[in-house]
């Protein structure tokens, strides 16, 4: 500040001095505003980058998941061997539902609810009081007794069986309908929706558009509230099946684990009934004959008439495609959208395998549950997810026009604002799990619709504290979480990455240009990410702007359970750990967490040959032997898996791999 200004203060200032002062203030304000807007924009961009990381990894995982379906079909080729060892395995995979029909009375009535039980008690037939009871109890973190869970599941299945594949709904000026998207076990979001929008009732209709479970920690609670509400108001609470209403997805994405943890005695039974209940969930809802509400999307061949008539309960799982039976034409080989062709040999069946859809019907359902809209015209295989397709605005117009519909409402994809409109207003995505990836990652939303009025969107975000953290702290949290996951990905492909880097590094200097590094990263990891912007988090650069490509691998290493095991074996096991877990869980049919050494070896060898991994049988055997610490011939598989966690050297809060469901 100049002395000139100081002198002028206090006295009667002339207008020119006043102007000069306010001009200075104006300039100062401009500087601060300009700086702040730049800073704030960079924060938002960082947040967006982090979301992109989460999303691309999530979809890459889903693709891996669907490739498992190839594996199971492949297992059928070796069916006879497996059948000898474990006849139940095939029955398990292509489950017959004969047993449970008669079970209900016998099984449920055997379960006593002790007087000491402090949780919510339901009374059948259910009424709206039971909805209240459940909501209040779950807010208190109580767990619903297994007996009630089973009763609700049996009742729900009984009622769902009478529902058509598509529920037809009408709105009126006095009766709006609310549409919610993915909840994924986030109970707080459901509570928030009910708080803002009221509980379901005769005058307050809801559609829940699939993916109620997996990932979040309260999937069973959400399911119970939704099913009980459905039983009380079957004409006003509508449920659509999502791609996660699938027992195989639950094995990988956490719901199975949640059930077995909360219901140690009856968990298996609950899971068994649940498998069935899922298959009876309707495929979609149609509002006022104008608006189609389904979980994923459509394809150019979507045939609503066909879908209205198929036997939807034969759709067990996305990982169980129909196999041709004896005598069927093997020219119609099952070609999955991932491009692999499966040629099952003639398979002897005991009749249960005829309880399946045709290939065409099955694909129709997969499209509905898995597809995503994109801006590009046409219809393409959904390569991110490995199932369903990408459909363009022309496909939307074509299909909507064909059935005289005006709009498609779907979910399936997380959106930062909780909803998104595309394809010229014809397709709306609604996603109701806020903070899906991380605290602060995204808002949740729901839609209210009525007759011819334009849809209204309501957004929200759950926060743990009443005073939310400032934006920069939230962005830092999301960002470090995303970067951590990305680094784990890199570690699991370390050998391939280093090879790719070295191929480009002719002079063996340990350095690459930004362009070269980004190219290899994208190629090997198969993730379409803004590598240049992310590089500062993943590698060090020298003063010329060149990348020291080995620097990524210096602050993380996979903790080896056995010192002698070779690096590539560990890496491979780490990369496929989720797949291994699912397969082993399927084999471990009594969910005991133990499998025999022979089972372990056999499974690994099968897995080995299918995924063309070059690991010596001998090495795997050695590993298996070492894992069997008490030498009793069986391996505690959970311990085995946990052994492969990635340790961040610099991370003081190192925890075991969050990816293990």
């Amino acid at each position, binding site marked *: *500040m100049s002395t000139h200004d100081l002198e002028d203060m206090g006295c009667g200032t002339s207008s020119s001095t006043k102007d000069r002062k306010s001009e*200075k203030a*104006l300039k100062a304000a401009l*500087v601060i*505003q300009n700086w702040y807007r730049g800073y704030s*924009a960079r924060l938002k961009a960082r947040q*967006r980058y982090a979301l992109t990381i989460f999303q691309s990894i999530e979809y890459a995982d889903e693709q891996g998941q669907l490739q498992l379906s190839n594996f199971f079909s492949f297992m059928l080729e070796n069916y006879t061997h497996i059948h000898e060892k474990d006849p139940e395995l095939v029955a398990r995979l292509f489950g017959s539902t004969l047993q449970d029909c008669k079970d209900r009375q016998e099984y449920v009535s055997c379960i006593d609810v002790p007087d000491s039980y402090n949780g919510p008690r339901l009374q059948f037939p259910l009424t709206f009081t039971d909805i209240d009871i459940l909501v209040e109890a779950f807010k208190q973190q109580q767990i619903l007794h297994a007996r009630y869970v089973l009763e609700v599941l049996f009742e729900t299945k009984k009622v769902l069986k009478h529902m058509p594949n598509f529920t037809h709904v009408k709105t009126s000026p006095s009766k709006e309908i609310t549409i919610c998207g993915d909840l994924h076990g986030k109970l707080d979001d459901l509570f928030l929706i009910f708080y803002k929008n009221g509980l379901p009732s005769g005058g307050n209709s809801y559609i829940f558009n699939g993916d109620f479970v997996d990932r979040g920690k309260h999937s069973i609670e959400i399911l119970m509230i939704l099913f009980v509400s459905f039983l009380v108001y079957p004409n006003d609470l509508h449920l659509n099946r999502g791609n996660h209403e699938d027992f195989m997805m639950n094995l990988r994405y956490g719901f199975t684990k949640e059930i077995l943890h909360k219901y140690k005695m009856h968990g298996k039974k609950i899971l068994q009934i649940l498998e069935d209940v899922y298959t009876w969930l309707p495929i979609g809802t149609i509002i006022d004959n104008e608006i189609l509400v389904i979980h994923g999307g459509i394809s150019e061949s979507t045939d609503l008439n066909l879908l209205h008539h198929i036997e939807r309960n034969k759709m067990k799982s996305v990982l169980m495609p129909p196999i041709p039976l004896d005598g069927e034409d093997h020219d119609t080989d099952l070609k999955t959208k991932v491009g692999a062709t499966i040629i099952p040999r003639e398979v002897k069946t005991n009749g249960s395998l005829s309880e399946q859809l045709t290939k065409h019907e099955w694909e129709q359902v997969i499209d509905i549950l898995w597809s995503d809209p994109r801006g590009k015209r046409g219809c393409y295989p959904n390569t991110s997810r490995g199932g369903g397709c990408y459909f363009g605005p022309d496909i939307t117009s074509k299909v909507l026009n064909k059935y005289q519909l005006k709009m498609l409402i779907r979910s399936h994809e997380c959106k930062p604002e909780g909803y998104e409109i595309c394809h010229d207003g014809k397709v709306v995505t609604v996603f109701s799990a806020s903070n899906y990836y991380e605290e602060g990652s995204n808002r949740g939303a729901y839609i209210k619709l009525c007759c011819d009025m334009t849809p209204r969107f309501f957004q929200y975000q759950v926060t743990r504290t009443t005073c939310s953290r400032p934006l920069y702290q939230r962005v830092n949290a999301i960002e470090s979480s995303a970067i951590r996951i990305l680094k784990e990905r890199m570690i699991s492909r370390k050998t391939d990455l280093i090879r790719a880097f070295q191929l480009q590094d002719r002079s063996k200097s340990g350095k690459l240009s930004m362009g070269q590094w980004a190219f290899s990263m994208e190629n090997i990891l198969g993730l379409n990410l803004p590598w240049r912007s992310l590089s500062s988090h993943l590698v060090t650069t020298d003063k010329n702007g060149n990348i020291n490509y080995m620097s990524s691998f210096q602050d993380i290493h996979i903790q080896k359970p056995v010192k002698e095991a070779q690096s590539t074996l560990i890496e491979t096991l780490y990369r496929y750990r989720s797949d291994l877990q699912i397969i082993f869980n399927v084999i471990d049919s009594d969910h005991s967490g133990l499998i025999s050494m022979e089972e372990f070896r056999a499974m690994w060898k099968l897995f080995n040959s299918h995924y063309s991994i070059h690991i010596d049988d001998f090495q795997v055997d050695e590993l298996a032997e070492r894992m069997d610490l008490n030498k009793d011939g069986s391996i505690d598989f959970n311990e085995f898996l946990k052994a492969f966690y990635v340790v961040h050297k610099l991370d003081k809060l190192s925890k075991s791999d969050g990816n293990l469901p």
Partner: protein
Amino acid sequence: MRVRCSLLRVWGQVVVLEGLLEEEIIVAEYHKKIKDAFEVFDHEANNTVDVREIGTIIRSLGCCPSEGELHDLIAEVEEEEPTGYIRFEKFLPVMTEVLLERRYRPIPEDTLLRAFEVLDPSKRGFLTKEELIKYMTEEGEPFSQEEMEEMLSAAIDPESNSIHYKDYIAMMVVDDS
């Protein structure tokens, strides 16, 4: 003399050629950088972004245009008949020029500090919440309510209800780098 001049001229051309090649590489890298930033906001993967996100994209690339300058930039990249969407084909050349010419350089730390000091003539070392709100929402290119709340949440020390700008700047600068 003549020989040396002609040698110089030839040498000069070589240097210019090398310089041009270097510039091509720089431009190629800028193109990729701009494409990366654009794609992250291109939700439908159809090479367009909502015009309301353009400011964020430009600033995420390290530039700091004022609101007025941003307005002009948008006018340059918009369609003849504004659609609410900006196409990548129009955005790329304009943004490349901006980066090559190093336009809209960010505010250096000491300029920012001096700006706060101007608003704090009695040199208390802080601004009260009311003063900050008044300046940010009434002067210059005023903040929206959302922007104001966002800035306050991180800047204001709840006990004294004021912003100690030196500490604030130090914290923000570290976070932004």
